[in-house]
């Protein structure tokens, strides 16, 4: 009989990036790389565990933008071509490294992995990875939770309650459409909680969500068990809190496992190192160097000198780290169990893209963690958030504190002098849309489509990713471009609606460009 629970939560999200107007858009590669480096490896890991009889349970979110991209024919066709190109590159790499056996071994590994990806994507999953994940939910191994429509950062949209309601309702509708069932749980984008969002979630049938540590520790009244039990909001929503220890052990760039010297170096990629002519067929068609995924070095140390990656040593290290992680969870649980009147839950949320993309060995670590959990069942048991609530439906009443998992734990990652200009535009647009919806309670079909597309453009502008990118400065120009595009289209559409002169060709063009949420119910913006 276990003394406590460990609930891993993998948050899978990418911003909605789709550029039919370009033959080769750099930002679409985020999606293609995430499939080969993260989503397929996670599915492979689950298959391996199931085949080996290793029980596993964790919670996962699959945000609506990612889910939409995973079923988009244009993006999937482009991904298949990208995969084919990389397999070809793998063949050439095997030839190129023929006189360097250690490197050639790695080239063969990558080549084999890419071929496995193609086989699985085309044959086994029939190009539908979203359903591949939901199949594991149907088997009871994972629990997939919903999220906001376009990953809007809800605390800063709350000035328009209808905007928050629309993000949540349309996100849940998207989940229901994909899964065929209503979600129990909801991932708040960026862990962004504010008092009041619980009522919206509860009204939409959500049973639980998760927030950052201090969302619970600073709740009112003060919860007695910290983050080791959920709290129940006045609305009845259960809110779990993130465990800092687990976060640090995996995520920290200083202490975290992914920084180990044996692991693969993310920042060394042949796409930035080999001869341009050799690479030209496999990078951006304008000759812009990009990551290819062929990375031959390990982290080695802080200096620039890198040693060759040794996959066997990295695999062994992943196994050691999984055992170490579990040992720490056991220590934590043993102590907590003496202090609590029930089994504690340790909630460990991570970005899913950490596993495989940033941390190449992450999926292997997951496999070894569940292997260890199966072998040492006496202290810690893996669970999902919903399963824990089934066992402990009665939890301390409290209203969590406003919080996020951004820098310093509040809103400043998404609201600072670099990106604060976004919010007057988003707030005004949401108010304008609500007003238009009230003006057109029973619109004619063309106006109905225009209102729906206006809502779609606004939702896409609300994504938290743009504010994050502008803040981080890495892809700020792209983020500003996306905001400008969606808000400009929104302005055009609302102007056409207001003037009662819809241009059908223009509307069709907008609809074709971003066909996310085909059944979008824009009336949620009407309040």
């Amino acid at each position, binding site marked *: 009989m276990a003394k406590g629970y460990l609930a891993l939560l993998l948050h899978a999200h990418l911003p909605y990036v789709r550029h039919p107007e370009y033959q080769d858009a750099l930002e679409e590669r985020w999606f293609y790389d995430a499939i080969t480096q993260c989503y397929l490896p996670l599915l492979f890991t689950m298959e391996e565990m199931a085949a080996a009889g290793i029980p596993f349970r964790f919670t996962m979110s699959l945000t609506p933008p990612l889910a939409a991209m995973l079923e988009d024919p244009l993006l999937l066709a482009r991904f298949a071509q990208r995969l084919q190109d990389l397999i070809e590159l793998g063949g050439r790499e095997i030839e190129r490294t023929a006189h360097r056996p250690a490197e050639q071994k790695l080239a063969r590994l990558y080549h084999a992995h890419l071929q496995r990806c193609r086989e699985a994507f085309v044959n086994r999953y029939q190009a539908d990875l979203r359903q591949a994940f939901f199949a594991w939910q149907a088997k009871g191994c994972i629990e997939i939770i919903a999220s906001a429509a376009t990953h809007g950062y809800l605390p800063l949209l709350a000035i328009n309650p209808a905007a928050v309601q629309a993000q949540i309702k349309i996100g849940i509708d998207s989940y229901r459409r994909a899964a065929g069932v209503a979600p129990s749980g909801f991932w708040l984008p960026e862990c962004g909680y504010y008092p009041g969002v619980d009522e919206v979630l509860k009204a939409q049938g959500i049973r639980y969500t998760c927030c950052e540590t201090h969302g619970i520790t600073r709740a009112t009244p003060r919860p007695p068990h910290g983050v080791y039990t959920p709290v129940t909001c006045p609305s009845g929503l259960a809110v779990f809190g993130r465990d800092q220890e687990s976060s640090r052990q995996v995520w920290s760039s200083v202490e975290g496992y992914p920084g180990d010297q*044996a692991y693969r170096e993310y920042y060394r990629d042949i796409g930035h190192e080999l001869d341009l002519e050799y690479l030209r067929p496999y990078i951006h068609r304008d000759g812009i160097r990009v990551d290819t995924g062929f990375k031959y070095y390990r982290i080695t140390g802080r200096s620039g000198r890198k040693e060759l990656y040794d996959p066997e040593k990295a695999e062994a290290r992943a196994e050691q780290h999984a055992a170490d992680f579990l040992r720490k969870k056991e220590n934590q649980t043993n102590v907590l169990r003496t202090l*609590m009147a029930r089994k504690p839950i340790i909630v460990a949320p991570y970005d899913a893209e950490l596993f495989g993309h940033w941390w190449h060995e992450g999926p292997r670590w997951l496999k070894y963690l569940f292997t260890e959990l199966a072998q040492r069942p006496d202290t810690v048991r893996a669970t999902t958030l919903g399963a824990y609530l089934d066992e402990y439906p009665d939890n301390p009443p409290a209203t969590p504190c406003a919080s996020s998992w951004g820098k310093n734990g509040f809103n400043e990652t998404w609201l600072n002098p670099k990106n604060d200009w976004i919010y007057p535009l988003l707030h005004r*647009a949401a108010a304008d849309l609500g007003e238009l919806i009230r003006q057109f309670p029973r619109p004619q079909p063309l106006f109905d489509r225009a209102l729906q597309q206006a809502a779609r453009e606004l939702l896409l502008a609300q994504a938290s990713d743009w504010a994050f990118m502008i803040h981080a400065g890495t892809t700020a120009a792209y983020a500003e471009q996306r905001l400008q595009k969606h*808000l400009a289209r929104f302005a055009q559409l609302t102007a056409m609606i207001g003037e009662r002169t819809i241009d059908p060709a223009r509307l069709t063009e907008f609809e074709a460009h971003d066909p996310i949420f085909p059944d979008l119910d824009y009336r949620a913006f009407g309040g």
Partner: protein
Amino acid sequence: MSFSKKKDRHSPTVVGNEKPKMIKKSRLDQATASGLRPSVRPASEFSQKRVVLLPVEPHRLHAYWEFPFRRDPVADPMAPHRRQTRDEARQTKMILRFHALDAAQNPTNHFDLEIEAATGSCYVEVPTPGGSYYAELGFRAALGRFFPAVRSAVVATPAPAPAPPEPQAAASLVPQSDPTTRDSHPPLATPEPPAPPPVTEALTPAAPPADRSTPGAAVPEENHPAASPALLAVSASPNVMAIGKASKSWRADQAPVPGSTAPGQPIAKELAPWHLARLDLTEFCEQRFAPGNSSPTVPSPAPELIDG
């Protein structure tokens, strides 16, 4: 109170004892100058006046405002005020007045910031972290009279620290009449038994990180915070163990097991099982909270979008 720049021109007026601070001027003016953002502004922007407050963190608010400026006396919303005060427009100061609210949401005091309409936004340090505020945008006449034009919604900044422990929860850590605990420690805690050191002291010192020069090495158990001598002492103390036993029996059926509470003692019925924690895990978790774990949601930096 100070503006980070142009302190002499922008020193806000302070009313009451509180010292507001404008932290940084928004870049909205720069953004507007770039020519990018106005093109995406909804058609209705500036068609009506408003002021919006957004919480940034416990000590800081962001405010932005939109105000129609037209010299047409009919359309100028401030025209009546100007007439009323007989001030020239240039002598009238635009003011953002922040009102602090008490727990019952009643205004307690306020402070003023002198602003420029074209600036559009600002950041303000609030005197009471975790408090509720609203703002009024208006004008102050030369003689000091304030004419509010528009009011924001009430917002609250997040709490800067955990709420104090509830007396009831503290008093109910251990059921006074529980025979399983009666003999092992003094009855409930008034005053608190001195034995167990506070969990925050026991657990707060972070474990040293794993030695990266020997990758994969587990943090020695003796270094784990949960294994610190102080905490182990607490864990092993008769108090804690006894409480643990009492708690388990209560958890089983959400009520005291027969015999664990003397008949007629009401305390058990009033205690929820989660009140039985002996140590303050909330304080422990708060101490371990290390902000800054923001996750990179974008897989990799990429150059600008280029048309293929």
